[in-house]
């Protein structure tokens, strides 16, 4: 666990940089997402690629912003989470228009409309978790929202896969606790 003193001196600078970064990233990701759509590819699947591309694009512009890919992913995945929740929210609004889909339940992939409210709750809980254990929250962003595998995340952070998995499991316990208490209110 990072001590408060170790964080102290850089905190101010980092938050300014982070704010700038977020807006830049947000724009960049939206640009990429749109381009992705022109190609007809469903973006949900290419988030992985998208983030890689965003990283390559931005790091070539100003490498001081992104000392490493892990750092970038930490930011980017949070931004991505926001974009995704916005999308799901707007989509579930459309869904109520009355069109129907039949969902095939075969295969191991759960399909069907994601619940925007539930995602918001997850997002809120993640924000809380990020306040004291950001590395756990990042794993959730990367895995749940962006669809990276443990192996990919491990490679990004130069950690063992087992470590990433442990972080994921811990984060999941935390989120579950948090969501349960939230819904019991």
């Amino acid at each position, binding site marked *: 666990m990072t001590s408060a003193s170790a964080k102290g001196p850089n905190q101010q600078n980092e938050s300014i940089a982070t704010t700038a970064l977020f807006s830049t990233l947000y724009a960049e990701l939206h640009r990429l997402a749109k381009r992705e759509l*022109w190609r007809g590819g*469903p973006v949900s*699947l290419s988030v992985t690629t*998208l983030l890689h591309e965003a990283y390559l694009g931005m790091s070539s512009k100003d490498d001081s912003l992104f000392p490493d890919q892990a750092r970038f992913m930490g930011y980017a995945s949070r931004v991505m989470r926001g974009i995704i929740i916005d999308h799901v929210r707007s989509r579930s609004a459309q869904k109520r228009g009355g069109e129907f*889909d*039949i969902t095939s339940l075969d295969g191991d992939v759960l399909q069907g409309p994601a619940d925007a409210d539930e995602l918001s709750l997850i997002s809120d809980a993640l924000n809380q978790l990020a306040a004291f254990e950001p590395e756990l929250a990042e794993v959730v962003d990367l895995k749940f929202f962006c*669809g990276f595998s443990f192996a990919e995340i491990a490679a990004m952070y130069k950690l063992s896969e087992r470590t990433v998995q442990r972080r994921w499991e811990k984060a999941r316990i935390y989120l579950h606790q948090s969501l349960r208490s939230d819904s019991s209110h």
Partner: protein
Amino acid sequence: MPGLRPDEWQALSPQLEKALDMTGEERVEWLSFLRKENPGQADQLERLLDQHQALERENFLNDRVIALPEKSGLSGQSIGAYTLVSEIGQGGMGTVWLAERNDGRFERRVAVKFLNIALLGKGGEERFQREGIILGRLAHPHIAELIDAGVSQSGSPYLVLEHIEGDHIDRYCDQRQLPITSRVQLFLDVVAAVDHAHTNFIVHRDLKPSNVLVSHDGCVKLLDFGIAKLLEINAKDDRVQLTVEGGRALTPEYAAPEQLTGQPVTTATDVYALGVLLYVLLTGQHPTKTVTNAPADLVKAILDREPVRPSEAVISRNQGEEQVSAAARRSTTPEKLVRLLRGDLDTVVIKAIKKNPHERYSSAKALADDLRRYLNSEPISARPDAFAYRATKFIRRHRGRVLAMFLVALTLALASATTWLLSRRLTPLKEIKQRRLTANSVEAPVLNAVLSPNGKYLGYADLHGIHVESVDTSAPVRISVPPELGNDNASRAFGGWYPDSTRFLASSSTEGSLSQVWSVSITDGKAEKVAEIEGLFESVKPSPDGSKILYASGFRNSGAPELWLMGPKGETPHRIKSAEDQSGFQLLGWSPTGSRVVYIYVRHQEDRPDISVRSCDLDGTNEATIVREPRLDAYAWTSSERFIYSRTGDPGGTESDNLWELKVDGNGVAKGPSRRVTDWSGFFVQALSGSADGKQLVFLRGSSRISTFVGEITNAGKGLGSVRDLKIDDNFNIPLAWSSDSREMIFSSKRAENRLIYSQAIDAGSPSQLVTSTPGMNFYIARLTPDRSALLLEGSPNGKYDSAIYRQDKNGNQRLLFDTNGFVQYWCSDIAANLCIFGQMASNTNDLVITKFDPETGAQRELIKIPVEPGSSARVGEDYAWQLAPDGSSIAILRRDHNWIRLLSLKSGVTKTLLLASQPKLVDLNWASNSRGLFVSSRSATGAVITYVGLNGTTRPFWQKPAARWAGVLQSPDGRHAALWSVGRDANAWMIDEF
């Protein structure tokens, strides 16, 4: 348990980390140890760890549910060699874009379909591309071609497909107000495509009107074959993650019950969807349409409710005006529509959409067969005991054995079915008056004919030479025929007229020498040689202004590989176009203005040719397709706007050739749909040509005939001496066997009410009926038992599809030996081997299964299963001929239209292949009576050819029948005679004066 406070979590977190790393046993031990120090924390940890187990079980958060943003459309992106132009569709499976080639090599518009699946990792991409390759091999004229498959830079898998401009089949039918029979015919193209895919183990899974397009020229194209499968296969791969936005975009209205309940999807699933599609085409309604349209109701209806019969659906649901308009869209009245649907169509549709897959048609082909039977007014299999037409049934049952005879029988059968068809056609076409111009016999049918531009002269070729006659008086016009054009060994053709109608071009080709092109004047009768051409294909065509001559050279199965132009004196010959591999040019022509050359382009795709009429500029560029039609026989671009072609009826159907018309622009591009203009049946229509004003149209009209002969065998069984006409009569007699004393020929004939077996002494006399006739029974094939004491007959009662083998002994008593399951070919050896066998195509593979049977008791035993041609789409019943050697030692199997024969020794199981290099188009075979050789019939450019092929590989020409399409030999048991028969055609030039 309330949510954890941050400080609580921070205290628990490191402990949790430790615990998660432990095994279950370690954890228990560790927790009990911890409990002694800090019981509160231990309890909390235990609860969290229990939750962890539960979360793991329920896969909490492990499934991603996310799909992304709003769509936006901007073009210009590149995918492979294609640039996206505009989005043309969106569906559950993905987004479809119109794209064009961006390397400028040739103009081609394609559809690029992005699939809503993600492929993670290289394995996923490779797998996807592999699947794409498999689908790409699914070549069929009615399946949209898959040109390429790949993964875009961003990781989206895409397919590049043939771009089809067309309408959904239901809308197409409604807009054109197609009557029921036309709808069924169009639908048969859909079924053919599905069947082709099924034989390649590809199930569509998502058949619906939006996946079945019909182009403006009436060509059906199925889209998205196998893509549903592609999605599913990828989902099963661990390395591949699949997400379909909004779930699998199954189209509930066309989904089979098993798809909704998650049962295995098979070819029967497609049969169901075909049934629903047919229901919709026939009635305009959905079989399980519900009142509310709510998906849950629909699903329930699909699973539970028995569909209303189509004929009832058009009465009960469509009241009043709606009912009238549904009928009007089918060019009929509500009453007639009900009558049309009631009965066979009801039965066929209901069988196709049975809820239980096993109760449906066993295959798409079976569905097609029944629909064809319906069109032919034969009894359908789904309700076997209805009416029948014996003649058509004959063809159907024996098409495997006698491919060419099939054509003969077809034409004959047509005559009897004509009345029926005409009475059933709902909107009779205006009758077009035609008159016969030539009077050639079957011995010398007209080979080709061309009308002069002024409409006054007919030029034609037959076996005897080139002729010109007056269209009005039929009086021959004297022309001086150069010796080369009169040579009996040459194949000759009337090429075409010069614009002033006083001169024409004709050509003659003799094997092994240059083809000669002659210009002949009809005013002074003089002829001059214009050119000598190597490998001339068919003939030469002068341009409408007379300044150029168009011809093709080279020979392939699909036509000529090269198109050439030269000047009117044969000067400056230059090649303007080359065909792709496996493709060729046929039937050349010109656009009315002479600015474009026209040709039929044949591309061989697997076994099926893709046939289109195309035109291009005089330098071979700017090629455009006028019409793509697999059944096209001939065409004529008669005036600047009018393009006429003849189209064969459905193979196996009762319709013969008819004329169709297409409005075209100067480049020959169709400006609207094809329109059928004749309502003919009973003959073929070829060699179309028109006068310059487009009013008169000349064509070859004909039908097939069979002739029987008997010949003396010479040269130790390898040669043929004198041949004389057996002159049985003209009742389509098929030689089948010889009597045991070699004095009588046994044949089948339809000289009475039913087809029966007769024999006729070869010396003289009239035929005598050989089989005991049973009322209502037809006998098609007769063989002698090995001991020659009895006849084995294949017969079936009127109206029954399945046949049986009967035994008739010397005193005329018949008894049933066994039922055959569909069509079989059966043979017996002579007494030495005492062997009788029959062969049948295995039901699920293409293997030839040979079964031995006892000619006395009918007892059977499977002898051998032969994978005839692994991986080929050829069918044993249609594409092979085989026969047991008289001594019972081996079986010879011949591949039709190819050049090999396989010999299988029944003793050793060893096979040996005979390649007949000089005979590329084999048709049939018969063993020599001493079992040491085969009489192999093949087709050549000039007629039918029979070659004696010794088992040692020696070959010797045996018999040639010029102008015949097919010929056969049956050697007598004593080896002294051969029964010979040939299938020829009777063709004459006819004219329509006011077209």
